[in-house]
């Protein structure tokens, strides 16, 4: 559920990201397109303005020339011819400029060449007229009537020129207005598009944020669910552990009561057997003392009974009760050990195992066996006496079941495995058949050739203790060349007990 959520989250976010990128790209390209278009509009507008200005300058040149002509006629000073010369030069230049620039506006589509040529032609006629007038005036053959006529003609020409100029200027003005309007429209469109883009980005960002929030919520929910499951699991484990511990307690109590109650009748059997023995002694003494007929078959039978039958029966009763007594005692001992309150303390396992080895060193010497602790044993927090019992039992077993005619090699090693400590006791003895791997840990059960004394208690005890220490014991053997007992216990019994009690 978590994974599909993540997939969907990534999918949504990618989609939103792609959407955002497309919108941004669109805004940027629109901005480029519109700015390019605005540039064109601006250029065209400038060109139209220039044409407008050139028309004005063109006319102004004519006016300057006219003014200079008038000044010269009135003052007859050569100095007035100077502006005329300047205006003449300027006029030629402006005429050429006007022709050129007018053709540029809207690639010549806006202003036709005819009105421009007309204007230039009119201007030229006017300029020529001024030149003609000035030349005539200078040589003196300039009648006042002639002059009046020339001035009139000049005025009429000037009006025509102004009209022709106005036509061109109108066209230029309309181009400028159209371009300005286009620019304004483009700017408005761009603004609209940017606003739209911004709005879309806001929408996308909001969407992404919402998706993220939902995703975070999902993760949170999943985590909570996981925690719930975890808690449920923990409580289930706790319940199971409690149930197992209860069953174990019940079994221990049961074993205690049974062994306890079995002992009461056994004491009677043993007690009255003793009584019977002492009575028999008296009876025997009496039968022997009282003579009688040697041929009496009853006397012979009585003698056989007191000498053989009764002692034999009593002997069997005694050995059986003794055996039963010791078995009951062992069960009691086991059940007591099971009920004993554990006392977990930090333990130096190396010295603990060494002590166990020392305590049965005599056995090793007798059996010709050698014990070696391999490497460093991991330290634990556990019950000292239970561990001593476990190692003494295992080491004792290892020495007991060595192979004849071969020096015994017993190795103890240990390691940590997460929360547990694992110890191994390995020997090179006679081994254990695989079919007996579980059986040997059962109470009163033994395996292999029954040539050594024992009750079948030690390993049952070892298993019970290992389990109480939060682990277990198991065996590994090929059935021929040795046996390895593997004891697992909790590394820290306080922690383990705390967890079960909590």
């Amino acid at each position, binding site marked *: 559920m978590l994974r599909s959520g993540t997939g969907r989250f990534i999918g949504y976010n990618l989609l939103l990201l792609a959407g955002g990128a497309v919108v941004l790209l669109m805004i940027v390209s629109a901005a480029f397109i519109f700015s390019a278009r605005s540039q064109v509009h601006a250029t065209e507008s400038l060109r139209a303005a220039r044409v407008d200005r050139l028309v004005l300058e063109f006319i102004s040149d004519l006016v300057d020339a006219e003014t200079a002509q008038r000044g010269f006629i009135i003052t007859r000073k050569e100095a007035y011819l100077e502006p005329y010369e300047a205006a003449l030069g300027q006029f030629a230049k402006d005429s050429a400029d006007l022709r050129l620039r007018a053709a540029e506006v809207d690639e010549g589509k806006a202003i036709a060449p005819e009105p421009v040529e007309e204007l230039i032609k009119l201007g030229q006629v006017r300029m020529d007229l001024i030149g003609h007038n000035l030349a005539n005036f200078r040589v003196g053959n300039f009648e006042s009537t002639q002059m009046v006529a020339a001035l009139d003609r000049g005025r009429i020409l000037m009006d025509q020129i102004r009209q022709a100029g106005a036509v061109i200027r109108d066209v230029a003005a309309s181009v400028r207005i159209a371009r300005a309007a286009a620019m304004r429209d483009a700017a408005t469109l761009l603004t609209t598009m940017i606003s739209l883009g911004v709005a879309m980005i806001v929408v996308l960002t909001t969407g992404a944020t919402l998706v993220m929030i939902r995703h975070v919520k999902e993760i949170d929910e999943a985590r909570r669910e996981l925690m719930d499951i975890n808690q449920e699991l923990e409580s289930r484990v706790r319940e199971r552990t409690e149930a197992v511990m209860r069953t174990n307690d019940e079994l221990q109590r049961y074993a205690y009561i049974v062994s306890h109650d079995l002992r*009461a009748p056994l*004491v*009677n059997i043993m*007690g*009255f057997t*003793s*009584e019977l023995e002492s009575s028999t002694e008296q009876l025997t003494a009496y039968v022997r003392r009282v003579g009688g007929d040697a041929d009496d078959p009853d006397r012979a039978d009585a003698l056989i009974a007191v000498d053989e039958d009764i002692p034999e029966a009593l002997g069997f009763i005694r050995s059986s009760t003794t055996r039963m*007594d010791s078995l009951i005692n062992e069960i009691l001992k086991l059940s007591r050990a099971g009920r004993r309150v554990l006392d977990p303390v930090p333990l130096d396992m190396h010295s603990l195992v060494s002590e166990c080895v020392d305590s049965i060193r005599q056995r090793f010497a007798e059996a010709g066996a050698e014990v070696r602790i391999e490497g460093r044993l991991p330290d634990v927090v556990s019950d000292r006496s239970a561990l001593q019992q476990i190692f003494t039992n295992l080491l004792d077993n290892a020495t007991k079941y060595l192979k004849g005619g071969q020096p015994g090699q017993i190795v103890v090693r240990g390691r940590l495995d997460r929360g547990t400590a694992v110890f191994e006791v390995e020997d090179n003895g006679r081994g254990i058949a695989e079919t007996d791997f579980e059986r040997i840990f059962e109470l009163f059960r033994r395996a292999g050739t029954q040539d050594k004394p024992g009750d079948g208690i030690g390993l049952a005890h070892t298993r019970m203790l290992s389990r109480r220490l939060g682990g277990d014991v198991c065996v590994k053997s090929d059935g021929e060349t040795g046996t390895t007992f593997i004891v697992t216990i909790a590394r820290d019994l306080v922690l383990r007990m705390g967890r079960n009690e909590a």
Partner: protein
Amino acid sequence: MSKEPKPVAIIMIEDDEGHARLIEKNIRRAGVTNEIISFRNGTSAISYLLGADETGLAAIGRPSLVLLDLNLPDMTGIDILTRLKANEHTRRTPVIVLTTTDDAREIQRCYDLGANVYITKPLNYESFANAIRQLGLFLSVMQIPELN
């Protein structure tokens, strides 16, 4: 004990007949000749010790010593001990708890309730017989208070 004007009776409360018999035999072997009165359950023992009315008046002028087993079919020896020690007429009667239980808390509890001696029945018969005989020797020199 024989110096007492009235001989002390040994009240044995033990549900196991065999045990009762073995205890009696071994006490006798120690030379104790006092009367031994046996009870197989708590009810009959209580009605003897405190009287049928259970006031304890029946105990006056009847010096006795109680040998008590804790595991009884109808009540625990602890109940009997409590009631004996709570009654003003029987509270000075010595009580020897003779039982199989060796639980430390149980022993403490019995002494708290006023038991005079606590003996755990040994696991094997030889030591059991030996312990009873020594108890018999102990009983033969023990002074029992006069009840009134």
